[in-house]
């Protein structure tokens, strides 16, 4: 099928996390008289701290008797996803239900604590084993045993596939069509395109070459093409970007004003390439093909390099929510801030190559349930230890009926 006839579905953000199922833990709970509250908290903190269950409140008012407190003595092992607990969540918490517990199941220190503080009604209660990710989860889970709501460190995660806005959709469709076209013309089923979202101009593209080289999947080939373009535009030794090449001095001598004023507004002067006109022209040629969006945002190639204009633009870019930090003018660090369009969902090797290349977004068309690493089978972008992460979008194809 030729790429012009393709109809796309709405693009969706592929979440990096899925909703956590409720896991419960069995808690040994006992009731104590109200008046020992403070002493009890201290004694419990010393005798049996619960570092794994910080999200649970240690003590609650007994739901059926105002003169009693109920406190968690200790946890008795992870229950997994328990049927009993799930029904407990859906129905009203049944206070009258007793799962009595013999005192001698507890560690010795807790046994003495229990008797010293006048404990009674020792029983088993289910509580959520993990902190909830969202407010909705908190509302259900807290019915088991009260939970302190705390927004997760990285903010409340997106857990469902969210559609993109109209403008992004157009941008996605345009470039995905190019990628499909490239695959079609190269007689393979996969191709990748790396795009600078500032200027909406393709930086590098490649079709799958795995018939020639077993590791030259489309993404790997495109990443390589991007690095070759980088080397061609900013050759080693000539550029001001290499901290060891020494022409940082040149940049300062040639445009001292530019450096000065950009520092004033607090943006690190990124005036690479100014000192060297030849690569700049080459770059202009490369970007020239596609400049519909350029007028508004990114391209600085054809205009006068007035310092004020440049500074204003950069400021605007910095405040924009989705814009990457590097302006179109500066040399990128590998693929920082770029978008990668790929026809088929990348395998784990390609997905990791995109992490190494520090792309900003990955957009794919066809999910792969067997080897896809970005939502199809695995979810690499959920991996927190990586030194970089990107957003993943799926732009499905509408099947002809």
């Amino acid at each position, binding site marked *: 099928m030729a790429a012009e006839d393709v109809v796309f579905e709405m693009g969706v953000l592929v979440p990096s996390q899925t909703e956590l199922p409720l896991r419960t833990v069995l808690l040994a709970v006992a009731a104590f008289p109200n008046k020992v509250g403070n002493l009890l908290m201290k004694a419990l903190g010393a005798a049996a701290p619960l570092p794994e269950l910080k999200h649970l409140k240690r003590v609650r008012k007994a739901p059926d008797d105002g003169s009693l407190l109920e406190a968690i003595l200790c946890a008795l092992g992870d229950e997994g996803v328990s049927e009993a607990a799930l029904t407990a969540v859906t129905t009203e918490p049944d206070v009258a239900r007793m799962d009595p517990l013999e005192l001698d199941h507890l560690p010795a220190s807790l046994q003495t604590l229990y008797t010293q503080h006048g404990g009674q009604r020792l029983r088993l209660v289910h509580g959520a084993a993990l902190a909830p990710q969202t407010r909705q989860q908190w509302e259900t889970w807290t019915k088991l045993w009260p939970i302190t709501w705390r927004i997760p460190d990285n903010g409340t995660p997106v857990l469902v596939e969210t559609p993109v806005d109209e403008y992004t959709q157009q941008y996605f469709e345009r470039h995905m069509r190019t990628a499909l076209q490239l695959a079609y013309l190269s007689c393979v089923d996969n191709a990748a395109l790396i795009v600078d979202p500032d200027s909406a101009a393709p930086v590098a593209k490649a079709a799958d070459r795995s018939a020639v080289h*077993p590791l030259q999947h489309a993404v790997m080939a495109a990443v390589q093409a991007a690095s070759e373009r980088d080397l061609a535009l900013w050759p080693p030794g000539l550029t001001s970007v290499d901290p060891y090449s020494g022409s940082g001095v040149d940049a300062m001598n040639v445009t001292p004003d530019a450096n000065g004023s950009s520092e004033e507004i607090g943006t690190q002067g990124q005036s690479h390439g100014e000192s060297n006109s030849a690569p700049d022209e080459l770059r202009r040629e490369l970007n020239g093909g596609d400049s519909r969006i350029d007028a508004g945002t990114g391209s600085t190639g054809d205009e006068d390099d007035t310092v004020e204009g440049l500074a204003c633009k950069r400021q605007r870019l910095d405040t924009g929510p989705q814009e990457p930090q590097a302006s179109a003018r500066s040399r990128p660090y590998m693929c920082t801030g770029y978008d990668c369009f790929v026809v088929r969902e990348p395998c784990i090797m390609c997905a990791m190559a995109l992490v190494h290349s520090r792309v900003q977004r990955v957009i794919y068309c066809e999910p792969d349930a067997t080897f896809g690493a970005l939502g199809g089978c695995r979810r690499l972008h959920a991996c927190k230890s990586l030194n970089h992460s990107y957003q993943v979008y799926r732009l499905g194809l509408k099947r002809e009926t």
Partner: protein
Amino acid sequence: MFCPFPTCFAQPCGRLSQLACPCLTNSHEFVIIKCHKIEHNRGIINLRMSSAPPSLPDIASISRARTQGWTEQHIGYMCQAIAQALEAWACREVPVGCVVVRDGKVVGRGHNLTNKTRNGTRHAEMIAIDQMLAANNGSVQEANFERCDLYVTVEPCIMCAGALSLLGFRQVYFGCGNDRFGGCGSILPINFEGCGSCTRQPIVGSYAGRGFPSKGGLFAEEAVEMLREFYAAGNPCAPRPHRPVPREA
């Protein structure tokens, strides 16, 4: 004008000539000598250079490896991998090196080249694989990865583990683990799960979902030490340090 200290790699930087070079102070008894502050367009980079560049494992660490049950072959090949990492160090690349052994012969070697190629995927393993393919006119069958063992100083990353799985490597030995993006168990067990293809078309000489046995811990301390020394200076080509590089008083 320039820093006179022999291991100071900062010499070619023109900007340094405008700064007073702190190496002239005679505090040479420290392992880390001094902090060169080099300002360039992307911000400030702190360069710290060790007075003693890393070297091959000494007698003590070799005998320690022997007591850990490594054979002379393992030790010999891993020393060659470390030699590759030292070469990477010398050209200011992340110090990771590897050798590929087939039928008792070293048939490929490589070290990290991400800074020079400006391509974040040019890891030691990828360089060695490309070298082997080039030596066999690009033929995967002739390169015969199924009979190859890889010795690499640092656990292969998730991407490289995927590549090794696609090519069907026989065995992987590594030095230290990689707790940020290790693909042989540290972060993801690609050595069990394997990697697949990105295309539906069948590819000659490429496996899908094939795992490979891997074993780590040979000269782990040496590999870690090299990385630590390297990152103490901050990767010179990274845009700006992700974590603050400690300044010296």
